[in-house]
C-alpha cells in the first residue's frame, strides 16, 4: 500500500496545473481515487453534511444485486451446454467452468471498451470520470447470449456508450438505457447472432443429442398452434430433457437464454437487494409485473391466437421480463422521476412487453423494445404528472 501511495505521490505533480501531463489529470484522478480515499474535504462554506451514499456506492449496490444472476447464469451456460449434448451426468464444477470461460471474456471486453471510452471522453471534456459504466458494463454481458462473438460485444458497447450516452452529455444525461442500447444495436445490426436458436453454447465440433432443438420458450409458445402450455411441457422430451420448459423450470431458470436473465428467482433476489437498500424503485418493479400480468389476462379473454391464450402467469417467468423489470426499468436516469409516474411507466412497460410478444411475430421477446420505448416516453409521463399536481394545487390556492 505504502509503495502504491509513494508511486502516486511521485507522479502526481505531472498531472497538476502546469505539469507535463496536465491534460490527463482526470484520468489520473480516477485511478487515484479508485485506489485511495481522496483527501479532499468539503469547502468552508456550503453544505457540510453529506450522505454516505454517493454514485460509486449506488453503482456497486446494483452490481452486487446482479451477482446472483451472474453466478447462476454462468452455471446455466454450462448446464445448457451439456444438456444439448445429452451429457446429463456433468458435474457442477464442469458446468461452472464452461460458463466461466464463456462469460468472463464478455465481461472483460465490455468493461475494457466501455471504460476506455469513458476515460477518453473525460479527458477530452475535462471532467471527472463518472462511475456510471460500472453497472452498464455488467448489464451488457448479462443480456447477451453466451456464444456472442466478442468483437460484436466491443462494437455494441462502443456504440452504446458513444451514441447512447456521451452524445447526450455523459452519465446521467442519457435518454435511453445504455445497456439496452447495446443490445438493440446488435439485435438490428447482426440479428443472426442474437436471435433465433443461438442461446445455447455448443462449442466447435460438438454434436447435439438426436432430436435436439434450441428454440426458446417464447418461440415455442408463439409458434404453437394448439395449446402453448402443452407444447411447452412436452418440449425437450424428444431428447431426454423432459419438462425442460415446465413452469417451475422457467421460474428457477434452467432454460436457455441470455446469460443472466433466465432465472426469475435470481432476478427477484436481486430485486429484493435493490428494494431493501432503496436503490431500485419497488413501484416500477411491481408495476411491470402487474402490467404484464394484466395484459396477459386481457389477451386471455380476447384469445385471438393460441399464444394469447397462454395463462398470464407464464408471461412473468418467460424471457427477460423479470430481468428487465428489476435491472433495466429501474434505471434512475431513464425512468420517470415522479413517484406517480413510476406506476404508469412500469405498467406500460409490462403491457407493451406482452403485446409485442403476442402480436409481433418478428420479435418473440418484447421487454427490450418496451423499455426503450417507455424510456423515450418517461419525460412525457413526468410532464403530465407535474401538470396534474399543479392543477390540483391551483384549485386549492386562493388568489
Amino acid at each position, binding site marked *: 500500500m505504502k509503495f502504491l501511495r509513494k508511486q502516486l505521490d511521485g507522479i502526481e505533480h505531472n498531472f497538476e496545473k502546469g505539469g507535463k501531463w496536465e491534460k490527463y489529470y482526470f484520468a489520473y484522478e480516477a485511478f487515484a481515487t479508485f485506489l485511495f480515499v481522496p483527501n479532499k474535504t468539503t469547502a468552508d462554506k456550503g453544505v457540510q453534511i453529506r450522505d454516505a451514499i454517493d454514485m460509486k456506492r449506488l453503482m456497486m449496490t446494483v452490481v452486487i444485486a446482479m451477482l446472483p444472476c451472474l453466478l447462476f447464469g454462468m452455471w446455466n451456460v454450462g448446464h445448457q451446454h451439456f444438456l444439448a449434448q445429452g451429457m446429463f451426468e456433468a458435474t457442477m464444477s464442469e458446468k461452472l467452468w464452461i460458463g466461466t470461460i464463456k462469460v468472463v471474456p464478455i465481461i472483460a471486453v465490455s468493461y475494457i471498451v466501455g471504460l476506455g471510452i469513458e476515460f477518453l471522453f473525460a479527458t477530452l471534456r475535462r471532467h471527472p470520470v463518472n462511475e456510471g459504466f460500472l453497472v452498464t458494463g455488467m448489464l451488457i454481458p448479462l443480456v447477451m447470449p453466451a456464444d456472442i462473438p466478442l468483437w460484436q460485444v466491443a462494437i455494441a458497447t462502443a456504440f452504446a456508450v458513444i*451514441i447512447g450516452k456521451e*452524445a447526450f452529455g455523459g452519465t446521467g444525461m442519457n435518454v435511453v438505457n445504455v445497456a439496452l442500447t447495446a443490445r438493440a*444495436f446488435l439485435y*438490428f*445490426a*447482426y*440479428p443472426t447472432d442474437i436471435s433465433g436458436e443461438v442461446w445455447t453454447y455448443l462449442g466447435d465440433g460438438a454434436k447435439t443429442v438426436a432430436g435436439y432443438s434450441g428454440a426458446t420458450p417464447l418461440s415455442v409458445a408463439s409458434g404453437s398452434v394448439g395449446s402453448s402450455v402443452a407444447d411447452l411441457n412436452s418440449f425437450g422430451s424428444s431428447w431426454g430433457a423432459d419438462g425442460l420448459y415446465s413452469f417451475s423450470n422457467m421460474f428457477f431458470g434452467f432454460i436457455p437464454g441470455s446469460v443472466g436473465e433466465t432465472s426469475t428467482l435470481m432476478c427477484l433476489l436481486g430485486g429484493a437487494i435493490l428494494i431493501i437498500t432503496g436503490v431500485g424503485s419497488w413501484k416500477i418493479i411491481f408495476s411491470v409485473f402487474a402490467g404484464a400480468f394484466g395484459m396477459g389476462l386481457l389477451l386471455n379473454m380476447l384469445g385471438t391466437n393460441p399464444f394469447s391464450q397462454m395463462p398470464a402467469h407464464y408471461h412473468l417467468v418467460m424471457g427477460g421480463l423479470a430481468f428487465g423489470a428489476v435491472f433495466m426499468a429501474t434505471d434512475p436516469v431513464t425512468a420517470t422521476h415522479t413517484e406517480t409516474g413510476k406506476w404508469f411507466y412500469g405498467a406500460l412497460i409490462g403491457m407493451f412487453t406482452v403485446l409485442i410478444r403476442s402480436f409481433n411475430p418478428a420479435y418473440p421477446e418484447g421487454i427490450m423494445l418496451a423499455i426503450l420505448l417507455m424510456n423515450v416516453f418517461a419525460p412525457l409521463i413526468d410532464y403530465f404528472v407535474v401538470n396534474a399536481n399543479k392543477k390540483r394545487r391551483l384549485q386549492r390556492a386562493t388568489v
Partner: protein
Amino acid sequence: MSTATVEKEVVKVKKAEPLFSKKNKKLITNPLDIDNPITVQVLGVCSALAVTTQMKPAFVMALALTVVTASSNGIISLLRNTIPSRIRIIVQLAIVSLWVIMVDQLLKAYVYEIWKQLSVFVGLIITNCIVMGRLEAFAMGNKPGPSVLDGLGNGFGYGMILLIVAFFRELFGGGSIFGFKVFEAMGIHYQGNGLLLLPAGACIVVGIVIWIQRSMNGYRETH
C-alpha cells in the same frame, strides 16, 4: 409604390457586381458548411435517409436535386417580378414539377436500374423543402445569376451529405463502395452491419455528421 421598386433596381444595377464576386462565391461555399441544408437547416432529411443505402442512387439523387434546384431557382428568379405574391407557391410548384418530370424521364431513359431504386423519391423532389425553401428565400428576391449559384450551392451541400452518409452506410452496411466489394477485394470476410441499412442507421450517421460539424465550427446551444 412602383416607382420605389424601380428606383431600387436602378441602385442594384449601378453596383453591377461580377457573377463570381466574393459575395456570390459564398452562395456556393456556405451551403457546404455553415449553412448546409441537411445538417444545419435540417431540410430534406426524409430523402437523405431513404436513398443513402448505396452510393450510386445517392449520387444520382444528389445530381437530380442539384439540377432541379438550380434551374427552377433561375427560372423563378427571371419571373420573380411578374409572379403575383398571392399565388406564388403554386407558380413555384408548377415550375419545380416541370423540372422534376424532365429529370425523372431522363433518369428513366438512361439509368433505369437506379431510377427503380430511387422509386418515388425523384418525384418527391417536388415537395422537397430545400427546393421550395430556396425559391422562397432566395430566388424570389435575387437576380437569376446569383439564384442559379445559390441553387447549385444548396444542391452540392445536399449532395455532399448524401454521399458522406451513403459512403458509411454502403461501406459498413454492405461492405462495398459504388457496388465494388472493398473488403472482399482485400481478402477480408466482412459481416455487414444490418442497422446501417435501416433508416434508423442513416439517422444515426447524419447525427454523427452534425455532431462533428458542430464541434468543428464551435457551435453552442443558446438558451
